[in-house]
């Protein structure tokens, strides 16, 4: 911004110097023109005077026919000694001295008038020029002041250029103006992004500290009870078990937080590369297979009409993480000996992956909330299960970063109990 300002200033200083020089040139030219015009008209007056004197001289000589001939000679413009004698005569009487005759006085008066008029014209001309210069200088100054005030406004983080202020016409000034407008827009966008980021970080920190409080308080209470000596061995065992569970919860949360913070701070960039989505899904299934086995839950991949295997641009590691989260949820909230079925189909733009379980289901009012950070369902079954409320949030973030969506859906499975999560990933 500072550099920008300097460029602007020097440009205008250059412009005003140039303006100044042209002003001097114009004044000089005007001066010369008026001097020329004045001297030409003075010269004409002088010639006029001389001619008059010549006529008078001829008249002074004159007698009879001669004067007529002399007049004709004068009219014919003949050069000659005509009137020389008369002139001497007039001179001898002292009429030809300066100020000594009427015509001479007239000539002086005329010359004076011409000089005065020329001077006046010159003065008017200079005045007009100065006025023009002043006006344009003032306009420049105003424009500069306006630019200055805009820059000042920018410094106060206000990037709106008033619509009416936009500079009319093109030229250097117009260019500076539109550049300034662009700069303002860019800075406003940056500012907004910064603020959003700050808000995000703030709420993340608040959320985390809130989440940590509960298990830590639980742990503390357990340890305090354990410190009392009047506990039976059975009770002690029970509280130790409590402590262990709280610790496990903390551990799970720490793991989830690491993932979230990577996502949030942008340390992990989603790198989309064409890969077989089916393989990603299968590797996710392999990761949760043991947990499913424990509850005797079978995971079935239903074949769609399309041949299996879709090359889809996606980040294998993170999409796998998203699938794992969805599958783990399905296992966690399903009874034993149930089925988790997965369907996959390509539509015009999206690959649609449905993961259906036969678990506890999700009430409609919670559809939107379950994807929020640290939200956990209100039902008692949810409260009993381990979890930190970040899995689905992370899943939505990952899929969203791929330009897809993840929703939970009830219309796909009629009266059956359970939830269906629908992931849509863009095919290209």
């Amino acid at each position, binding site marked *: 911004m500072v550099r920008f300002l300097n460029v602007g200033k020097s440009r205008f200083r250059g412009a005003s110097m140039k303006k100044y020089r042209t002003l001097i040139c114009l004044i000089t030219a005007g001066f010369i023109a008026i001097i020329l015009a004045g001297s030409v008209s003075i010269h004409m007056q002088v010639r006029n005077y001389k001619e008059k004197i010549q006529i008078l001289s001829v008249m002074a000589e004159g007698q009879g026919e001669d004067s007529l001939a002399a007049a004709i000679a004068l009219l014919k413009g003949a050069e000659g000694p005509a009137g020389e004698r008369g002139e001497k005569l007039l001179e001898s009487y002292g009429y030809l001295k300066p100020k000594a005759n009427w015509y001479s006085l007239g000539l002086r008066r005329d010359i004076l008038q011409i000089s005065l008029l020329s001077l006046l014209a010159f003065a008017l001309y200079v005045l007009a020029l100065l006025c023009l210069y002043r006006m344009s200088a003032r306009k420049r100054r105003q424009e500069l002041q306006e630019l200055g005030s805009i820059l000042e406004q920018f410094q106060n983080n206000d990037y709106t250029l008033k619509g009416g202020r936009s500079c009319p016409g093109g030229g250097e000034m117009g260019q500076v103006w539109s550049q300034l407008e662009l700069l303002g827009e860019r800075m406003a966008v940056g500012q907004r992004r910064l603020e959003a980021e700050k808000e995000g970080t703030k709420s993340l920190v608040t959320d985390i500290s809130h989440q940590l409080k509960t298990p830590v308080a639980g742990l503390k209470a357990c340890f305090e009870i354990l410190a009392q000596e009047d506990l039976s061995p059975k009770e002690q065992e029970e509280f130790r078990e409590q402590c262990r569970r709280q610790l496990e919860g903390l551990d799970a949360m720490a793991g989830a937080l690491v993932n979230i913070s990577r996502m949030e701070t942008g340390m992990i960039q989603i790198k989309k590369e064409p890969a077989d989505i089916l393989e990603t899904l299968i590797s996710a299934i392999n990761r949760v297979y043991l947990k499913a086995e424990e509850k005797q839950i079978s995971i079935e991949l239903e074949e769609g009409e399309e041949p299996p295997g879709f090359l889809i641009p996606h980040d294998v590691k993170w999409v796998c993480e998203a699938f794992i989260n969805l599958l783990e949820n399905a296992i966690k909230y399903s009874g034993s000996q149930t089925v988790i079925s997965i369907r996959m189909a390509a539509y*015009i*733009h999206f690959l649609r992956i449905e993961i259906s379980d036969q678990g506890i289901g999700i009430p409609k009012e919670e559809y939107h909330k379950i994807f929020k950070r640290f939200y956990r369902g209100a039902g008692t079954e949810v409260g009993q299960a381990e979890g930190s409320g970040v899995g689905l949030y992370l899943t939505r973030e990952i899929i969203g970063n791929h330009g897809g969506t993840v929703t939970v859906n009830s219309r796909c499975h009629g009266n059956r109990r359970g939830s269906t999560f629908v992931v849509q990933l863009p095919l290209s």
Partner: protein
Amino acid sequence: METILKTENLCKYYGKGENEVRAVRSADIAIKQGEFTAIVGKSGSGKSTLLHLLGGLDYPTSGKVWVKDKDIFSMKEEELAVFRRRNIGFVFQAFNLVSSVNVWENIVLPIGLDGREADVGFAEDIIKTLGMEHKIHNLPNTLSGGQQQRVAIARALASRPAIILADEPTGNLDSKTSDEVVTLLKASSQKYGQTVVMITHDEDIAQIADRILSIEDGRVVEQG
């Protein structure tokens, strides 16, 4: 972030006395730049009336609506029409495409009618984002419902309005096409930083929004 649309004590009543229907009751809504908001409600809950008020298509009984810090109902009628054309994009259930001109013309026509120069590169990018690049010479009636709605979305996006109001954009589509169209609407509005307010009766569809407002008997409540 900047608030782009705001209402204050917005009310719309129809009829008088005992027959009075309170379609919208003192709604106070604030929608921020770039937000994707869904307004969910059953039919007859007043959600369409609310959307019409937000878009300046209907006058309220009382209350105010600001779009980009301008009180839209303080404007004269012609002034409001121009403001609406420049700042509010609509996507309707019935697509409302011009049947006699092709897809490309449908998308750039409104910009031309407004006396502006269409940004061809931007329009092409939108069309590509919405996957319609092979259909730009088709007439609307040769397209499927989902495709027509995508053209309508492209048309709304191309004029870069301050806000897009979508009234049941998936109302005429089957559920899987609905998911696709809404996902595209979400993805494209995210890509271009477009603010969208979508009205729907379908809670499944509403899930993809950043924020859900629900409306019941004319009252607007923030959900979750």
